[in-house]
C-alpha cells in the first residue's frame, strides 16, 4: 500500500486530535492543520509520546489578505524518519505584536526561532524567558518580513545613495571643463 507508514502515523494521531486535518504531502512528509489552541498539547505529545524528538524549525507566513499569520512547526522523528508540519493560524495585528504561546520550555532551540519570528514578523511569544532582539539589534522600523513592508521604499528613505550626476558636475561640464 502506498504511504503505509505515513498513514499509520496519521491514524495514531487522529484518535487524539479528531479536529485536526491530516494530509500526506509526499513520502515521509505529513501536513497537519489544527486550531491554534491545540498546538501546545500537540507539541507535548509529539515530544513525550510519539518520539518526535527534533524541532527542525518554526516558520511564519504572512497571509495579509486573510488577516492572519500562519505558524509552521516542523517536527522530525529519527526512528521513523518522518517530518510532520503542524500549521496553525493566528490573527494578524496591524499595529503592534500578535501574540501566541511559546513552546521553548519543551525545546530549547525554539527560543531562537521565536526571537527571529518576533523581530521579522512581529509575533510575540508569551511565556518565553528571552524575547530580546536577535539579528536586527538596531532596528526600530516595522517588522521587515511582513508583506506590507516595502523594502525599496524604506531603503530609499532611510539610506543615503551616491549621486552620480551632481549639480556641480553638470555646471562644470556646461562650462566646458572636465572634457579632455
Amino acid at each position, binding site marked *: 500500500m502506498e504511504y503505509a507508514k505515513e498513514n499509520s502515523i496519521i491514524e495514531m494521531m487522529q484518535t487524539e486530535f479528531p479536529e485536526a486535518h491530516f494530509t500526506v504531502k509526499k513520502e515521509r512528509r505529513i501536513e497537519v492543520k489544527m486550531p491554534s489552541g491545540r498546538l501546545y498539547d500537540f507539541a507535548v505529545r509529539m515530544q513525550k509520546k510519539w518520539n518526535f524528538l527534533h524541532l527542525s524549525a518554526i516558520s511564519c507566513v504572512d497571509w495579509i489578505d486573510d488577516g492572519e499569520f500562519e505558524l509552521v512547526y516542523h517536527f522530525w522523528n529519527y526512528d521513523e524518519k518522518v517530518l510532520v508540519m503542524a500549521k496553525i493560524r493566528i490573527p494578524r495585528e496591524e499595529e503592534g505584536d500578535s501574540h501566541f504561546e511559546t513552546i521553548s520550555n519543551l525545546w530549547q532551540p525554539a527560543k531562537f526561532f521565536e526571537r527571529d519570528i518576533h523581530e521579522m514578523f512581529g509575533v510575540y511569544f508569551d511565556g518565553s524567558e528571552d524575547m530580546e532582539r536577535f539579528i536586527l*539589534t*538596531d*532596528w526600530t522600523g516595522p517588522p*521587515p518580513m511582513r508583506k506590507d513592508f516595502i523594502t525599496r521604499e*524604506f531603503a530609499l528613505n*532611510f*539610506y543615503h545613495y*551616491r549621486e552620480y550626476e551632481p549639480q556641480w558636475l553638470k555646471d562644470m561640464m556646461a562650462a566646458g571643463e572636465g572634457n579632455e
Partner: protein
Amino acid sequence: MDEKLTQRSVWEKIAAKLSKRSLWMLHYCTGCGAIELPPTMTARFDMERFGINPMVTPRQADILLITGYLSVKTLKRVVLTYEQMQAPKYVVGFGSCTINGGMYWNSYATMKSLDRYIPVETYIAGCMPRPEAIIHSFNELIAKIDRGEANSWKDYYKNYDFYRKNQEHTFEGPIETYNDIKADAALFRI
C-alpha cells in the same frame, strides 16, 4: 586641500618612505569578498612582496579592508574597529557594495556608501574584484602614502560631526565608543 595638510617636514617624508613598505592589513572580512583574499595573500599573487601582511588586531593594523556588503549590525563593529586603529590608517573599500550598495541596493539591512560612515582612501570597483585589482589598489595606496596624499584618516578627526551624525542616524541613537575622537584630534593638532 588646505596647505597645512600638504606641507610635510623632512621627517614625515622619511617616515612615509619607510612605512609605505610595511603595511599591515587588518584581517577582518565582511560579506563575500573575503574569498579573494587567500589567493592575494598566498603564493600565487603574494602581497607580501609589497610588504603587506595580514594582522589580527586593530591596534597594530594600518589598512582596514572592507570586503563587501556591510549590514547595519556589522557596520557598528567596523566603526568601533576603525576608531581603535592607530593613525595613520587607511580604509580600502572593496567591491561595488561599499560604493553604492551593489546588488543589495534596495535592501533594508545594508548600508549603501561606506564613505558616509568612515573616510575611505581607495575604492576597488567590481563584483568581485580579482586579486590583481586588490594588488593594484595596494600599489596605488603605497604611491599615495609616498606622495603624502593618503590623508583621509585626518578627515575623520576634522569632520567627526558629519560622520557621527550619519552613524547615529543609521544606528538609531548614540553608540558607545572607546575613543575620544575630539581629544585625539587635539593631540594630532587637526
